[in-house]
Structure formats: C-alpha cells, structure tokens
C-alpha cells in the first residue's frame, strides 16, 4: 500500500477519534488550552487531518501534459 493510502487510513482513524462517542454523556469536563477537553481533542484531530491531507494531496499523481512543460 502506498504512502498516500496510509495517510488516508490515518485520516479515517483521526475522524473516528474526533467524535466523543467513547465519552459518557454528562461526564466531568476539564479545560485544555481554554477549551472543553473533548473539543480540544476534536480540534487536535482535525489539525492532524489537515496536515496529513495536505501531504496526501502533494503526493497525488495526476498525469497532466501541462506539468511536463
């Protein structure tokens, strides 16, 4: 499996981790960087998605005659 596919797989994992389905509703919430902890986790996951996705886009191989010029 190429690097790009591994990156897309990691993006999928980050998406699953971004949603607080594993937390009990009403459980105590502490603040991390001024945000509720589950929100900080979601934002960290999305920042990770952005970085991995940007790298994945730069690795895309699209045949295009203009690029050869």
């Amino acid at each position, binding site marked *: 499996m190429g690097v790009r596919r591994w990156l897309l797989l990691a993006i999928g994992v980050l998406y699953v981790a971004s949603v*607080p389905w594993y937390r009990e509703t009403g459980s105590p919430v502490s603040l991390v960087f*001024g945000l*509720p902890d589950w*929100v900080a986790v979601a934002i960290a996951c*999305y920042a990770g*998605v952005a970085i991995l996705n*940007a790298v994945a886009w*730069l690795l895309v191989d*699209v045949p295009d005659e203009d690029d050869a010029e």
Partner: protein
Amino acid sequence: MTFGQLGVVALVVYLGVLAIVAEAARRARSDGSPSDHFLAGRDLGVMVLFLTLYATAYSGNSLLGYPGVAYRSGFSFVMATGFMMSIIVAFHALAPRLRAVARAEAFVTPGDWVRHRFPGQRALASAVGILMTIALVNFLLAQLKAMGLVTEQVTDGAVPYAAGVIGLAGVVLVYETLGGMRAVAWTDAAQGILMLVGLAMLLAWILGEAGGLAALTEAVRQARPEAVAVPDAATCANWFSSIVLLGLASVVYPQAIQRIFAARSARALQRSFAGMTFMPLATTLVVTLIGVAAIARIETGADVPSDAVMPALLTEWAQGGGWNAAAAVVVFIGALAAIMSTADSCLLSLGSLVAEDLLGLPRTENRTTKIGKLIAALLLLSMIPIALMRNVTLWRLIELKMELLVQCAPAFLLALHWKRLSGGATLAGIVVGTVFAVALTQADVPRLWGVHVGVIGLGLNALVAIAGSWLRPSGGAGRAAEAMR
C-alpha cells in the same frame, strides 16, 4: 460618521473594486468559447484557484448561519470543522481521476463525464442534471435573500432589503456575463481575502472582551452548562453523519467540479487542495467559536433566529464606535463577499448546466456561451421575486439540497473507480435514494437515529447501483474501462 454611513461608503468601495476586476477579466478574454467563458480558458493558477475554491465553498450560510447553529448547539458544532475538512478529503476519490479524463476529453460541465462514462444513457444524465440544478437554484436563492439582509444591516437600513437583493443580483449578473469564470475567480480571490481578515478581527475582539479562551468557556458554562457538556449518542451519530453527507455531497457540487476542469495544471490543483484543507481551521472553527461566544453575550432563552446571531454580535461591536464600527463594517462586507462569491459561482454553473446537461444543446463555440449567459440571466430574474418575499420560508428546500445532491455521488465516485457499474443500475439507485430522502424530509423526519435521511438514502442508492450492476452488468464494460483510463 455613523455606522450606517460607514456601511454605505464601504459598500460603494467594495462594488467599485468588483467593477474594476470584472473589466480586467473582460479584457483578458481570449475568445467567446464555452471553455473560455465557463472555465477561464482552463488557466487558473494555484493562488487564484485556491482562493476561488475557498470563496465558493464558504457561503453566506457559513458566515451567517453557522454562528447561529453554534449558538444553539454549543461546542458540539465543532463538528462543522470536521465536515468542511471532509470535503477536501473526499476529493481524493474524485479529482485526480476526473481531472485526467476531463483534460483529455475537454469537459466543460459535470454532465460531460456522465455522458462519456455512460454513453447512450440520456435519462441518467438528465437525472443528474436535474438534481444538480435543483441544488444550485436553492443555493442561489438563499444567497439572494442573504444579500438583501446583509445590505440592509450594513447600511443600517439606508439601503432597504429589496434594493439590496435587486442591486446586488444585477452586479453579479453584470460581472459574470462580462468576464465569465475569470471574473468570478478573480473577484472570489479578493472576496476570500476580505472574509479571512474580517473573521480574524471579530475573533480577536471577542477573545479580548471575554479575557481569553478559558474565561470565555467558563462564561459559556455559567450561562448554559449543556453547551460545554460531552454530547449525547444522537449528537455523535449526527456528527459522523454530517461528515459523510457534507463530504460526499459537496464534492459533486457542479461549481466545484468545474473548478477541477478549470485548473491550469494538475500541480496547481494539488497545491490548491493542499492549502484548502487548512481553511476549516481558519474559517469554520472561527465562526463556531464566535457563535459559542454569543451564548455568554446574548441572553440565554432569547428567541434569536439562527441568522441573527452574527449580526447581533456585529451590531454590539459597532456600538463601541470608531475603529470598532469600522472593523464591524469590514466583517459585514466580508460576509457579503462570501455571499456574492457563492452566488456568482452558482449562476455561472447554472448557465452551462441548463444549456448543455438539461436542454442538451449542442456545444458550438459562441452560441452555447450566449445561450448559457441568457439562461443564467433568466433564472436570476425569475428568482428575484421569490427572494423579495421575506416571509417565504425556503429552509425546508435548502435543507433538502445536500440530501438531493449527495444522491449524484455514485454516478461520479463509484463510476470513476468501478468499471462494472452500469448506467441503468446507477439511475435506479439515484431514483431510490432520492425518493427515500425527499419522502422522509417532507414527512418532517430529517434524521433517523441521528443519521441524515440523505445519507441513508445514499446507502440504499449505492446498494441498488452495486447489486444492479452485479446482476445485470452493462454491455459497455470495455467502453467504461476506456472512459476511466
């Protein structure tokens, strides 16, 4: 100078800049061909492509509607950052392969792909064209209404709602007709920058007023504890569902597909998407925080409509006078820019989509361009009277937009990756998915177990398309393989 007077001056300056850009785009035209008008001669470079993708993706709803939803939902609306980012992730399944075929076959409209991949399947091409047209018309109508609303607010009533709708619709029509995609992309670039600057200023003011992020979160917890609490299972299901719905529906937006065709090179497209993936953090997350901050600033329990949260904050900000009023005007103009940049893209796509994909007019150089422009003008004129009816609630239709559009996804995403997919089964899937989504939405059941009915409809749609193709594969598998190569 009062807030309203500042608003009028800013509006005039903004429209003046648009006029200059439109004239420059008109002069840059090479010929009157559909490719030159609708795709800017397929010559959009990295920066312009990036900014036009950005300005088109972030509509008036993103700037005016999302803060209102965040105000009502609380921090759980951070899901919006995820679902806006999922669009750029989902493009991996579409853009590289579609771009390669589109370049070789000189596609102009999304229907070109459907006709190329499923030759002889006119009903399928029409079904996709109809769903895309309905989505675009809804989207354009919402932008027209938002234009009137924002103009009235930024000028403090000096320019009434109706004048805002008619005047700005006229402006969009003129620069789109004169300069086509080139004018749209260049004005989008200017509008995208304005949006970013305005949002950064508003967030800085809100955080400064609250005494930092931690103080803001504590104030929100005091005002409405459930806005900070861990969301329940239904909200988590809706979170996942929104990521799927928005990701898959937005990649088949005709105006997004046409920007893939319009890129100067594959490298320009790659770099633009690489940049776009960060924009939800700079835009959607910011408007979410603004909406959440409003919980502590606007009296809890007050019956504030979703679209009124952002204007209420800006009005409060402007009351500080001086630089505060000027900065609030910049944000209002930024919101207007977001609305107009989405409206112009919808209008441009509608012209080509109706002329070629729905009416099936043959593509001849200048005639198609002229007919496309005429259709766009007629559609816009016919929508203005509806937009002027302020008491008409179109939200049901607008909510339905993504649920309908997502049903087109198999005709692109599956068709690009699976050569066995047949046109008949794809059409059957679209019919099943669309009927399911429309019926449940009209029965006031927008979600089942927290999942959008459009996503469930898409599941049925894909199931029918796959099962149908297995049971009765298309006779043109060789042609399909050729189309995908």
